[in-house]
């Protein structure tokens, strides 16, 4: 736009000069030959200016076309800011009997604003004991493994800003405001766009691609909290600072490979061990359609984390943590129409090992956990869901009897049920009940939650 303005400047000045010249009385008291000379000059100048004016006209025309194209692009950018929907329309072909839709919004700097979306959450929780003070005998937990506090609370609110940075990079910043007014960078990363060859690279802070629900934001989960194994093994979900590469194979079934390397500052890693290169992961996802109504996705993931002085709940662990996850998802929607009825069944199995020193005592133990969940939308906007999860941990050294790592002969499990009503794709009301036997005393919890998203919100992953 600036260039257009600048271009128009010169011919306008020339035009002003031209009109001044025409106004000036030609040759006040000149001789005939002088007059002829002046006439010549005038005609030369006229030609000159005519050319300049013609040039100006051409430039104006070009500027107008440019502006129109820019306006159309800006309109598209404004109305479809998820950056993928509306490409600037190429000019109408000569055979089209009707003109293209006229541009709808004036071009402005505003058109390049990033996509801004906000997610709001609200809870009211009734529980037989405080769910936020979670404890699972046999497991050293991270600091976020607990549930929401009792009573009214707003949970976590999110603001996401994302946009294409240039033709090569996409940027996304996800700020999360905790219930206690703390501000956190949940995700903040850059990612390649359209690199080709099926390759996508990512750098910054982001949720890992391991498992099935790990990469999704909590507001996108089917239940209002993470299943027991995610709480126990990944402190709800694994996100850290690092780099990621994913490659989508050129096959007719979906086949994706990924690898990540992280700082290692998040549970189960700690202390940003190995000079800040403490976690590595690898995963493969495969998926496809069974028929018009059903589809599937499966994955195998591996996470290796190095913990140095991982200090939670007064216990300190130093050592290696390995975790494997097998995931499977099945989705059913009659004729591929999820609006009226649909079913999503998913399950994940976690198998891990921690080898090192726990409070100075050598440990080498395996633990495992799984969950299965199903959510069925039985009429438009209404769904119900069930989830069952359990954990298992190996025996501990007698020296650690009675410590956090002693499961005290218990097999922790939790059963959850929900009923959900969606006001639209952007608003959800959820009633959830869970019976949790992961601690000594059972926890019975009933919660009512709303989750809304406003602003342009991108499409959800499968």
């Amino acid at each position, binding site marked *: 736009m600036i260039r257009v303005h600048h271009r128009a400047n010169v011919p306008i000045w020339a035009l002003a000069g031209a009109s001044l010249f025409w106004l000036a009385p030609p040759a006040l008291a000149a001789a005939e030959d002088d007059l002829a000379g002046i006439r010549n000059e005038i005609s030369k100048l006229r030609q000159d200016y005519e050319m300049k004016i013609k040039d100006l006209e051409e430039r104006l025309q070009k500027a107008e076309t440019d502006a129109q194209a820019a306006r159309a692009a800006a309109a*598209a950018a404004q*109305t*479809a800011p*998820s*950056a*993928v*929907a*509306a*490409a*600037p329309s*190429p000019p*109408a*072909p000569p*055979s*089209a*009997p*009707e*003109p*293209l*839709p006229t541009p*709808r919004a004036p071009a402005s700097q505003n058109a390049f604003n990033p996509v801004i979306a906000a997610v709001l959450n609200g809870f009211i929780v009734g529980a037989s004991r405080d769910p936020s003070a979670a404890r699972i005998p046999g497991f050293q937990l991270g600091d976020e493994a607990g549930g929401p506090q009792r009573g009214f609370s707003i949970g976590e609110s999110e603001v996401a800003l994302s946009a294409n940075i240039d033709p090569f990079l996409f940027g996304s910043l996800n700020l999360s405001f905790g219930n206690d007014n703390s501000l956190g960078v949940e995700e903040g990363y850059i990612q390649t*766009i*359209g690199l*080709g*060859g*099926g*390759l*996508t690279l990512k750098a910054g802070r982001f949720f890992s691609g391991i498992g099935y629900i790990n990469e999704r934001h909590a507001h996108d989960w089917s239940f209002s909290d993470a299943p027991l194994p995610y709480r126990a093994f990944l402190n709800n979900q694994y996100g850290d600072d690092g780099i990621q590469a994913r490659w*989508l*194979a*050129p*096959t*007719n*079934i*979906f086949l994706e490979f990924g690898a990540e390397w992280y700082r290692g500052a998040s549970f189960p890693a700690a202390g940003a061990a190995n000079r800040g290169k403490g976690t590595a992961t690898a995963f493969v*996802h*495969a*998926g*496809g359609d069974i028929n*018009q109504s059903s*589809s*599937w*996705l499966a994955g195998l993931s591996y996470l290796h984390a190095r913990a140095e002085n991982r200090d939670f709940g007064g216990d300190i662990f130093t050592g290696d943590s390995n975790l494997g996850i097998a995931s499977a998802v099945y*989705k059913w*929607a009659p*004729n*591929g*129409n*999820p*609006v009226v009825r649909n079913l999503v069944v998913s399950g994940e199995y976690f198998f891990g090992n921690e080898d090192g020193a726990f409070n100075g005592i050598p440990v080498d133990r395996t633990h495992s956990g799984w969950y299965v969940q199903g959510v069925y939308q039985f009429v*438009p*906007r209404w769904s119900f869901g069930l989830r069952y999860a359990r954990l298992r941990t190996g025996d501990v050294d007698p020296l650690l009897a009675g410590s956090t790592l002693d499961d005290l002969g218990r097999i922790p499990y939790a059963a959850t049920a929900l009923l959900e009503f969606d006001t*639209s*794709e*952007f608003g959800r009301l959820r009633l959830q009940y869970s019976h949790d036997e992961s601690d000594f005393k059972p926890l019975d919890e009933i919660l009512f939650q709303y989750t809304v998203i406003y602003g342009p919100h*991108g*499409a*959800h*992953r*499968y």
Partner: protein
Amino acid sequence: MRTMMITAVLLTLGVASPAYANLNVFACEPEWGALATEIGGDKVSVFTATQGGQDPHQVQARPGLIARARNADISVCTGAELEIAWLPAIVQQTANPKIRPGAPGAFEASSYVTLLEVPARLDRAEGDIHALGNPHVQTDPNNILRIAKPLADRFSQLDPANASTYAARLADFSTRWQAALAKWQAQAAPLKGVSIAVSHLSWRYMEDWLGLKRIVALEPKPGVPPSAGYLAQVVDTLQKTPAKFVIRAAYEDQRPSLFIADKMQMKAVTMPFTIGGTPEAKDLFSLYDDTINRLLAAAKG
């Protein structure tokens, strides 16, 4: 060793290769898949992402679709935000630069049609509105012709070696289509001025084409399912201004239109909306044959 294993795995899985075809087409809706085949013939290999009975607004970004879009040379979609709930997620995950927005391989059919019903107010309180206007352009077959030429041009741009084939096939298609248009126009003459009710505002372009008069929509706002209270209002409207019949697309919930049809003693017509929506709508031509037949049958009674 690792490379060998990966190669072996890829071979087992059947790596997608455009063995004979020159262009891999990812068509979002069946009508564009069919049009791509009409123009491209055996020079293109077409994958159609949605089926006849499927709501193109609400498609899950399934892994199978991502895998197909990964290898596409061109996507042929309606655009105008019809596919906003799923296509962006797919394109992003494929990392395929050919079909990114703005790339020559991202073809949006609605760009070549003047869109109607552009909302005056952009507010989600107005329901599931499309900022660029009503995207359901395929309900008027005149639009198919408007889109066919730029699609052929785009094929030629991406695959210049076969440009003459695309041009020839376009010319042939245009001739056949013009003849069909004239036939449909004649057949549909009795429909002019007939009053109808619609379940969703999907039919604006067809209403204009056939001169149908829309009295009411069964949705209070686009994409918002009707409540009992709203349906009572619809009944009230239809008592004052009667409609001959109520139409819905094959993919839509039939209950509201059956309820109204029963209440008002009028017919409920299931429309193909796209190829495969009804058993009779087998290709582009029979789609409009069936559309007109169903409307004529309903208008008669």
